């Protein structure tokens, strides 16, 4: 990539290796505040509250995505901003879902001009791809967002932190109240560093709130609303193991690979996502652990009922929870003593003493495209439209001893493994293996040596690409020369790729 400067982003530091960028000496950017014992923090009028924060046009406002597709808080705040005539806002939100489709209208009106996020789907993703936002979007990793906030690269003027429970002093959590959602880990850096932090809640408890996840010294104001979210949209996990025979085959091969790698022994640590191949892989890993009587150390990732069941059945001793996907995850966080709520910085911030991802033995990840150097795209579809983002992908891949990409070789008549891909999210150097329905491709000489005499079907990744090409035909890309609509920032703050307008 040969770009030094991107308008509305700034100077570009090109990606040059997963651990090569040394952080500049920067002190933690905390804002000094004065509080008076008679101050009242609680507001019920959103416009009055916004005026009190001092929010103005051109500022950056932040949100977390723990309410997922049930979030109502972003809409409440932006409507008030519009009514107050505040525009040209940068929206720093940890993830965007279809429930946020209305943001496209705010972009058209010039109220939102820039998006800073880790993951984006729905109409907002399409609008960014088509260049409908005035300024370039910034995509970070979950750990990268925390890093950027603490380093001062992402300065937040007002953080609006949805909390399912609060007291009148601003002790908050996501585990109590009518719209409890679980861990509030993605909001912790925002609460630490924003110039002004506002808790937005629909349930107030007498002081002091038990088990606060973020404490009163970090919350300046509290906005009480009728509902912070829709519980049906908040739950997104599934406990059902897929019945798709191809996905099951990939998952079983993945579990066998983990077993044969030698890492699956007492003290094993594991991260996997929800649904599809990930959940089925966890299931087959469990079967092996059962057979060999192995007790793992911790599981991490988006926590689902299935991962909770692994803890409850004694396969793992601890859960690290930066976000939960369902009510079982919530229940476990409320009751299990070794189920820990962690911040996104503790989870994956590369510029700290030790994020938890560095302690991972194995992570199972997905992909929309993989090239023959194992560079992985989880950001765009093969037609160049944004349809996701790194989330924790690059973070966990870099930290884990064994990072496995699982994917169908061919999906809806299109090759997934190929010579060139549309966009790079996670560098191939962080990926140790790729598992698809045709077998395993390795990107790790030590692992290749370990597996030399195993019964696993190991192929060269170029052979996998050629199988896919034989069936689907070679996919030719016409790289767009249009304007850059999104910057893909690696977890260390360097730029690994850019997305151009479709």
């Amino acid at each position: 990539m040969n770009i030094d400067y991107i308008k509305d982003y700034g100077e570009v530091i090109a990606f040059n290796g997963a651990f090569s960028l040394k952080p500049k000496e920067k002190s933690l950017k905390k804002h000094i505040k004065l509080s008076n014992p008679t101050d009242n923090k609680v507001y019920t009028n959103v416009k009055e509250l916004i005026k009190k924060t001092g929010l103005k046009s051109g500022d950056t406002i932040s949100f977390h995505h723990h309410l997922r597709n049930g979030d109502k808080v972003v809409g409440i705040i932006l409507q008030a901003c519009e009514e107050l005539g505040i525009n040209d806002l940068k929206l720093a939100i940890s993830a965007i879902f279809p429930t946020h489709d209305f943001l496209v209208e705010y972009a058209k009106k010039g109220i939102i001009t820039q998006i800073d996020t880790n993951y984006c789907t729905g109409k907002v993703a399409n609008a960014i791809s088509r260049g409908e936002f005035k300024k370039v979007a910034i995509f970070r990793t979950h750990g990268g967002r925390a890093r950027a906030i603490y380093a001062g690269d992402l300065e937040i003027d007002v953080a609006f932190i949805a909390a399912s429970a609060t007291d009148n002093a601003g002790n908050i959590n996501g585990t109590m109240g009518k719209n409890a959602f679980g861990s509030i880990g993605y909001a912790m850096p925002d609460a630490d560093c924003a110039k002004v932090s506002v808790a937005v809640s629909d349930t107030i408890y007498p002081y002091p709130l038990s088990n606060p996840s973020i404490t009163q010294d970090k919350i300046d104001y509290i906005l009480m609303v009728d509902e912070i979210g829709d519980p049906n949209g908040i739950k997104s996990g599934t406990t059902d193991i897929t019945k798709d025979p191809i996905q099951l085959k990939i998952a079983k091969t993945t579990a066998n690979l983990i077993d044969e790698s030698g890492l699956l022994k007492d003290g094993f640590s594991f991260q996997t996502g929800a649904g599809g191949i990930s959940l089925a892989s966890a299931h087959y890993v469990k079967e092996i652990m059962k057979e060999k009587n192995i007790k793992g150390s911790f599981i991490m990732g988006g926590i689902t009922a299935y991962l909770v069941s692994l803890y409850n059945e004694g396969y793992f001793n601890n859960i690290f929870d930066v976000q939960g996907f369902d009510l079982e995850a919530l229940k476990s966080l409320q009751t299990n003593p070794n189920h820990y709520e962690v911040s996104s910085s503790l989870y994956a911030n590369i510029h700290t003493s030790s994020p938890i991802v560095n302690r991972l033995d194995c992570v199972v990840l997905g992909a929309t495209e993989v090239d023959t150097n194992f560079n992985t795209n989880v950001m765009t579809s093969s037609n160049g439209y944004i349809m996701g983002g790194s989330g924790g992908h690059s973070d966990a891949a870099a930290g884990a001893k064994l990072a496995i990409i699982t994917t169908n070789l061919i999906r809806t008549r299109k090759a997934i493994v190929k010579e060139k891909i549309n966009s790079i999210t996670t560098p191939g150097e962080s990926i140790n293996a790729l598992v698809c329905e045709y077998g395993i491709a390795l990107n790790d000489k030590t692992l290749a040596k370990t597996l030399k005499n195993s019964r696993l079907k190991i192929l060269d990744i170029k052979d996998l690409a050629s199988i896919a090409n034989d069936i689907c035909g070679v996919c030719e890309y016409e790289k767009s020369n249009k304007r850059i609509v999104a910057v893909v920032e690696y977890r260390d703050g360097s730029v690994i790729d850019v997305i151009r307008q479709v």
Partner: protein
Amino acid sequence: MRRTLLFIPGNNAGNIQNAGLFGADAIIFDLEDAVSPMQKDSALNLVCNALTMLNYECEKIVRINLEYAKNDILALSKTKINSILIPKAENIEEIKELIKYTKNLNPKIEILLLIETPLGLLNAKELAFLNGVSAICFGAEDYTSEIGARRSESGVEIDFARNYLLNVCKAAKIDAIDTPYTNINDENGLIADTTYIKNLGFDGKLVISPRHIDIIHNCFKPSEKEIIWANQVLNAIKEAELKKSGVISLNGKMIDAPIVSRAKKILKEIL
């Protein structure tokens, strides 16, 4: 080896593309029941293309339509097909004619017959001995429907047909393939059913779900005791050959040709 013969609908391109990935001993591309009359020609086209362009590392069988048998066979004979499965086999002269027609086009193609009617069962004794027939498969759903039986978990209503067909196949020295287990989600039922037919002497089973393949292969895996015994038999034979001894025994029991054949079959099943 024909432990698992997996049915793949002949009109589903995605399934056809992935058919070879599940580890079945054979794939049966189905042009018959799985394909509606309106799609027969396009399905035949799709299966012929797949059998020409794609590589499957297992036996490739096509279940043809009895109604359009010659048309199907003619098109398939030019592909990398291994075998043809003729459904509703019952008329001896008709089957003879189709075998002759197939062998004239491509002598390498093997014929499997699907017995799924009472008349077919009655004629199985002659059908099994026809030249070119390498296996008889049992289709219990159509069969029980025709005899008016109700399907049960124990399968008592198909005991006679199973045992009769098994005997016919063993007499003709061809493979005996059992009916598919139709409850896709009942793993325990599948294990019980497969163990039962394996103990009866069946060589394999028709399969309608890829998820059943590993389970059936596990059922067909010989036990540790059987493997030890089979190795002992083959070692005893080797020793006898070295000693040029005419009489071979193991633990005081005579070893004759069927015992050797059984031992070899067990060791083959480990692979």
